[in-house]
Each structure stands twice: as C-alpha cells, then as structure tokens.
C-alpha cells in the first residue's frame, strides 16, 4: 500500500490554510456518530441473536399444562404421558416434579413459595423429534383423554417476541443508515463552510491554473482524515463501553446480552473506514459541485 502514505501526507504543500479552531468539530461529530453506531450495531447483533434463539430453541420444545381438580391430577398426568408416548414425532415427554416447578416460579415469587398450598397446574415437558409432530391431532387427542390438558407449543408468545426482535434489528439497521446519512450531511455542510471560508485561496489557485480536482483534493483529504480519526475514537469508546457492560448472567436477559461475541467484535472496526468513505464521497461531491459554480 504505497497509496496510503501518499494520501496522508500533504503533497500539495498546504495550499489551503489550516482551518483553525473549528477543525475539531468535524472530528468530534464523527466520534459521537461512531459511538452511536457501535451501539446500533450491538443492538442489531443482539436482537438478531435473540430472534434466532427464540425461533430455533423454542421450536424444539413445548409444554403440556394440566389443570385438574386435586383428585384427578395424577390420573390425567398419566393419561397425557400415555398419549405423548404414542404420538409419532415426539422424542420424549417428562412430567416436571415439584422442585423443578418451584425453580421455574422462583424468579417471580421467590424461593420460599409454599407450592403445595397452591392449585398449580402440572407441567409436562415435550421434546420434539427431528421429524416433528402434528400439533392439531395431538390437541384433539389430548382433549379426548385428559380434558384439563392444554398443549402450549410456545408459538403464541414466541411469534410476537420473534417479531419484536426482528423489528428491533430492522430499527438498529435503520439507525446505522441514519447515522451514515447524518454524517454525510454534516460533512457536506462542513465542506461548504470550508470552501466559503477559503474563497480567496480558491480564486488564486484557479488563477494559477489549478483544476477543480486539485482544489477538491485538499479538502477531501482533510475531511476524510478527520472523519476517520473521529470515527476511530468514537468506535474505540463505544467498544470499550460495550465491553464494560455487565456480563451475560444466568437469567440470560436481553439487556446483558447486548454485546459482541467472537468475530462479532470485528464488525465495529469497519466503522472508521466506512466513515472515511462517507466523508470522502460527501466532501468530493460537495466540493466539485460548489467549485463548478465559480468562474
């Protein structure tokens, strides 16, 4: 890469004067946007992961919930297990015991819940075989054999969750796009301001035979470097902030899952070069369009 040093040094001998105290504004704005973009990326990845998890893990499991009067509970449970054992496509079925049910409820009611005193339904956990089972006919058979049994294959609450996760991901992508657009707009404005501030310099350059591309280059290099440096800074801070988020705990909550994993950490590293590319295109377009209007 011989090109990079040539791009970074100033072969033009600083024909455009240094831009003074407002130069850091572009860098700072790029940094802020990159920081936001890191979070948007993390959100898109986390919500994508969540959607996948809900879609696949829950796909393979279902629950039969049995609500029956005290005396009939064992009878219906046995009937349900019998039905499930003879249903093709079900790999295994297992009634949860008292302590397992207690564990499930613990996060909501605490560990000291006297389960025996409550009319809790009995839960039967189903693991689906690879070939799958016919939900409709299983439901029919269950109503026949055990009137208090309800098959819950999780679609009821999984569908809106998966949908929400997918929307969250779309929103995150939109955020990344908006941030890119805002960056392009900001750079365009900054370029115009710089061109206006250097009108006399540009006039002299034109008079001594400079082409528009030469003049544009001075501004393009400047803004591209500033955007790249700012974005690198913002990305570093953003990644640091994500890294310092509390680790994913046993509950596996969504918020603690907001982070990058493995190769995912490479994704935000694309932000600085992307910011540079956006700045390059925005500055060049703005500069060429504005220069064309000059004599």
């Amino acid at each position, binding site marked *: 890469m011989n090109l990079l040093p040539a791009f970074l040094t100033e*072969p*033009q*001998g*600083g*024909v455009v*004067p240094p831009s003074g105290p407002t130069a850091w504004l572009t860098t700072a704005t790029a940094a802020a946007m990159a920081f936001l973009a890191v979070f948007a990326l993390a959100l898109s990845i986390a919500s994508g992961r969540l959607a996948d998890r809900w879609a696949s893990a829950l796909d393979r499991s279902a629950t039969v919930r049995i609500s029956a009067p005290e005396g009939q509970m064992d009878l219906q449970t046995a009937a349900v297990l019998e039905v499930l054992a003879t249903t093709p496509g079900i790999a295994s079925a297992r009634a949860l015991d008292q302590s397992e049910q207690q564990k499930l409820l613990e996060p909501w009611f605490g560990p000291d819940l006297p389960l025996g005193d409550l009319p809790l339904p009995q839960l039967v956990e189903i693991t689906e075989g690879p070939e799958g089972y016919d939900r409709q006919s299983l439901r029919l058979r269950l109503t026949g054999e055990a009137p208090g049994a309800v098959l819950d294959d999780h679609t009821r609450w999984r569908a809106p969750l998966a949908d929400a996760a997918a929307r969250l991901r779309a929103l995150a992508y939109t955020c990344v796009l908006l941030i890119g657009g805002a960056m392009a707009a900001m750079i365009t404005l900054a370029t115009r301001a710089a061109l206006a501030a250097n009108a006399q*310099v540009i*006039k*002299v*350059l*034109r*008079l*001594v*035979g*400079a*082409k*528009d*591309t*030469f003049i544009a280059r001075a501004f393009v290099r400047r803004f591209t470097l500033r955007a790249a440096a700012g974005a690198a800074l913002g990305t570093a801070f953003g990644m640091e902030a994500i890294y310092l988020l509390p680790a994913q705990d046993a509950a596996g909550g969504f918020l603690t899952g907001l982070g990058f994993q493995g190769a995912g950490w490479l994704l935000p590293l694309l932000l600085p070069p992307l910011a540079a590319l956006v700045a390059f295109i925005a500055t060049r377009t703005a500069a060429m369009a504005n220069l*064309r209007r000059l*004599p």
Partner: protein
Amino acid sequence: MINLENVAFSYGGGNLLSEVSLRLAPGSFHFLTGPSGAGKSTFLKLCYGELAATTGRVTLFDRDVTSLNRDEIALTRRRIGVVHQDCQFLDHLPLLANVGLPLTVADKPLVQSDVMDLLTWVGLDKLTGALPPSLSGGERQRAALARAVIMGPDVILADEPTGNLDWEMSLRLLTLLTELNRMGKTILIATHDLNLIRQAKSLVAIRVLRISKRRLQLAGADL
C-alpha cells in the same frame, strides 16, 4: 496566440468594451493604456479566460474560449503568465511556495533550485521565507512576475505591474520584462504610466494600444 475578434464586453450595464479586435503575434511587445476605469484590467481578463466576451470571439492558442471546459481553461492558464494588478498571493505561504504555486497545482515537482534561480533573477533570493504581507510593493510585483514565468509560458500579461512603485523600481521591472521579450516571450502590459511606455520604446520595439470611448485603438506618435 491570443486573438480577439470583434469582441464586446459588459458587466451588466452598457458595453464597457465594443468592437475590439486584436491579434497578439508571437514575440510581440504590446502596451495597453487608457485612463483609470477604461477597462484595461477587464481586457486582460478576457485574454486569460477569467471573463467571457459578451459577443465576439476570443481565441487562446487557436481554441475558442467558449469551447473550453473548466479543466481546459486551467490548462490554458498554465501557458499564460499573468501578473495581476493586486498580485494574488496566498498570504499563509512563504514566498518560495507562492512563486512555485503554479508548479504545485500542476502536480509538477517543485525544484527548489529552479525557483531560487528565478528569485535571484528578480532579486528576491534573500526573502524566500517571507510571507507576502510582509513584502514591499516592489518586492510583491517582482515576486508576481517570477510566479508568472515559472511555468515557462509563451505569453506574459501584466496588469499595472509598476502601479505603486517608484521610478527606479519601475525601471527594474521593465528591464525584466524586456529581457523576457528578448527571450522570445510575447508581452502585453496594461499601464497608465506614459513615462514607462516612453522608456520601453527606447529599449525594444513596442506597439501601444489605447482604450478610448470603449474602442481599442493603435496609439500613434503622440506619446
């Protein structure tokens, strides 16, 4: 090299110049005179494509100016050395960089010793690091002349190059310009300084043009 055919020009009001025709032959030395505000600077700007004629035809190096795109105009300007009335330097760059600016914008290597030779020729070799605002009027004009010739142009246009110089410095600049003419450069100087023209007559063969009542005339022996 530079041809104007029946050119008229107006800034928006009435015509400032009309029915102007001129052919700058290679190696010729012209003076352009006329009272202040007659349109001398405007005429020069037509000659290097900063302004476009309202009517008529301006041809630079055999190409109609109106047919040139922006890049071609830039390339054409590299072949015409101009000493602007107000010099037009970049005030943040030292003299050496300002004189070498045409090379820089042409993406040509700025050979320090070449620029130094030129600066020595105009007597500014001690001031290479000075910023333009710190230079005297005579130094600025000589620096502008050095910048005008650094690309080795065939034509040199100078707008009031002795405008605010004392007589001695004016003579020095005139000498530089006549030297260039002897080297074969085509020269056109706009000035209202008739003494300068008289002095030039004693050094080289010149033609004197005058803008009067919006027309361009060949001035006679009345100078």
